[in-house]
């Protein structure tokens, strides 16, 4: 009895710092569904074997959470990890076969010669009893989550042959308060919602963040001048540039894949039209000219085509037009409301917010096999603002729960959803960053 209460106390004490840090982060993680076809993988805890203070990050836990939410893997719960090898020579394959694991990751954290930490890790194919990967990464203690995400990327790519997108970031808008008390912020966080940083705060609405292809800048819409204006801001330095502030709407900025042009919406002609601005010369080219609302331009990966939302046919639908202008073609024919297109890196999938009555869900139109096939990624009822991960393995979107907005990341097969919830206020308009290092 006494031992039990001691254990309970110990457990509570161990839990306290975890709870405190979860509150600080403000974002929580929730796995909604599972995937029977997911690959079983065991990521063994990676103990600190150095002589100083242990790093603050549980590297194995971060990797586990990354792989799990991708939908492609099913990770073995830490409590079920019977043996704890830290290097290849300690691996007993029969143990992992008995636990029905296809893959195994082991590693350890040691002191790096120049300060900081060095993580040495290996990936094994359990059935073949083969080492697939053996790598080491070095970082300061405050960058250990970055290291863990890069390890998850390497594991993901080695097994699936697709580049991982865990070491990326998300931008989003938050709002607290209503009316005169409303406060808005443009935020940037790691792709799992950790390390949130404020990029801009404003008492006036902020919306529509868009990443530059180098991941260093964000374009967004701000009402701080009374009317909507488009700004570009450097995330690291905070330096910013007013891009447009015309009469009427200045909205929906979207960087071209080469970063040299900006697609945007202006209603300076009296009606919202799509324009492309050359960011060097600031010259504007008007792309659409129609009495309907044309907005939310987004580029095809080759930079030759713009997809956008238009109600020229009555209700909002997705259209496609050459990035140099011309006559648009309608793209979506399913659903009576399709808006906010996001295009996958290969140009074959377009995710949209699809509405029917009062129900809005995230849907994907997949043209990989020729004629388009539709699938639904979210349950509704007011889901919006889809944004593809750079490898198209997942889609971020915004949903409403009660009176607040929350963000979800859903795997491309719709089988695993992760909720990123801000502790207070309304979170919306997620935008997934490009890869953090080009290849």
């Amino acid at each position: 009895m006494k031992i039990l209460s001691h254990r309970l106390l110990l457990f509570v004490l161990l839990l306290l710092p975890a709870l405190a840090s979860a509150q600080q982060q403000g974002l929580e993680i929730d796995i909604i569904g599972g995937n029977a076809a997911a690959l079983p993988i065991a990521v063994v805890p990676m103990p600190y074997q150095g002589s100083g203070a242990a790093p603050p990050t549980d590297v194995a836990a971060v990797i586990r959470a990354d792989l799990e939410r991708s939908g492609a893997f099913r990770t073995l719960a830490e409590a079920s990890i019977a043996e704890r090898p830290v290097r290849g020579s300690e691996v007993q394959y029969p143990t992992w076969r008995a636990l029905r694991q296809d893959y195994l990751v082991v590693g350890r954290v040691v002191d790096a010669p120049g300060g900081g930490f060095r993580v040495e890790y290996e990936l094994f194919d359990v059935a073949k009893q083969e080492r697939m990967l053996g790598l080491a990464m070095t970082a300061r203690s405050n960058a250990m989550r970055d290291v863990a995400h890069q390890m998850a990327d390497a594991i993901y790519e080695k097994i699936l042959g697709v580049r991982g997108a865990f070491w990326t970031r998300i931008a989003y808008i938050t709002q607290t308060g209503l009316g005169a008390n409303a406060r808005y912020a443009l935020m940037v966080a790691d792709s799992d919602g950790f390390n949130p940083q404020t990029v801009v705060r404003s008492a006036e609405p902020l919306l529509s963040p868009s990443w530059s292809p180098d991941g260093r800048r964000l374009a967004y819409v701000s009402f701080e001048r009374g009317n909507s204006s488009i700004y570009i801001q450097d995330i690291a330095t905070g330096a910013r540039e007013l891009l447009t502030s015309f009469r009427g709407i200045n909205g929906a900025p979207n960087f071209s894949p080469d970063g040299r042009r900006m697609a945007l919406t202006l209603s300076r002609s009296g009606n919202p039209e799509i324009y492309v601005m050359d960011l060097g010369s600031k010259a504007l080219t008007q792309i659409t000219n129609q009495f309907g609302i044309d907005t939310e331009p987004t580029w095809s990966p080759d930079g030759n085509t713009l997809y956008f939302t238009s109600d020229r046919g009555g209700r909002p639908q997705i259209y496609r037009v050459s990035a140099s202008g011309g006559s648009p073609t309608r793209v979506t024919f399913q659903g009576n409301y399709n808006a906010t297109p996001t295009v996958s890196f290969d140009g074959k999938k377009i995710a949209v917010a699809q509405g029917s009555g009062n129900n809005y869900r995230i849907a994907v139109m997949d043209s990989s096999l020729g004629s388009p096939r539709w699938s639904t990624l979210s349950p509704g009822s007011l889901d919006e603002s889809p944004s593809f991960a750079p490898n198209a393995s997942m889609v971020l979107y915004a949903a409403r729960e009660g009176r607040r907005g929350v963000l979800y990341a859903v795997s491309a097969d719709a089988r695993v959803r992760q909720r990123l919830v801000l502790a207070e206020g309304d979170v919306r308009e997620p935008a997934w960053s490009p890869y953090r290092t080009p290849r």
Partner: protein
Amino acid sequence: MKTSTRVVMMSLLSVAVLAGCKKTVKEEAPPMASPGTSTAPMTDMPTTAGAYGPNDLDTDACLRQRVVYFDLDQDALKPEYQAIVTCHSKYLRDRPTSRVNLEGNADERGSREYNLGLGERRGNAVSSAMQAQGGSAGQQSVISYGEERAVCTDSSEDCWARNRRVEIVYTAK
């Protein structure tokens, strides 16, 4: 002669607005100024006699109403708001130095950028109606906030109806 032309034009306009509105009204309208009061502008009184002054913005029953509501996905001005638009148009005529912002808003359904467009359409609808009644375009600025300036955040018909609106905001009286 001039006044009677204006009256004819105004009655033609109200007929046109009435004809243009197909939808049945679901949302509840705020109370209207009772017709026939001394400041009601829809009579054929000479404009100089009943000219508005800045104090009327706080005291006149019609001018105190500054919000016009719309149906879902619609930008057509509903007939019950014609009186509000009319008295504010008269105020703009009576006081050429006055300025208004027409702030267009939408409910939360649908995409945010599309709703910026929808809010602007509603602001333009009010602006056109005001211009038709002599409020000059130079006195009016349309600003769309889309769904970004909600007055309530419930996902209910009642709240949505309150957010689909144009606010008439005087920046110079």
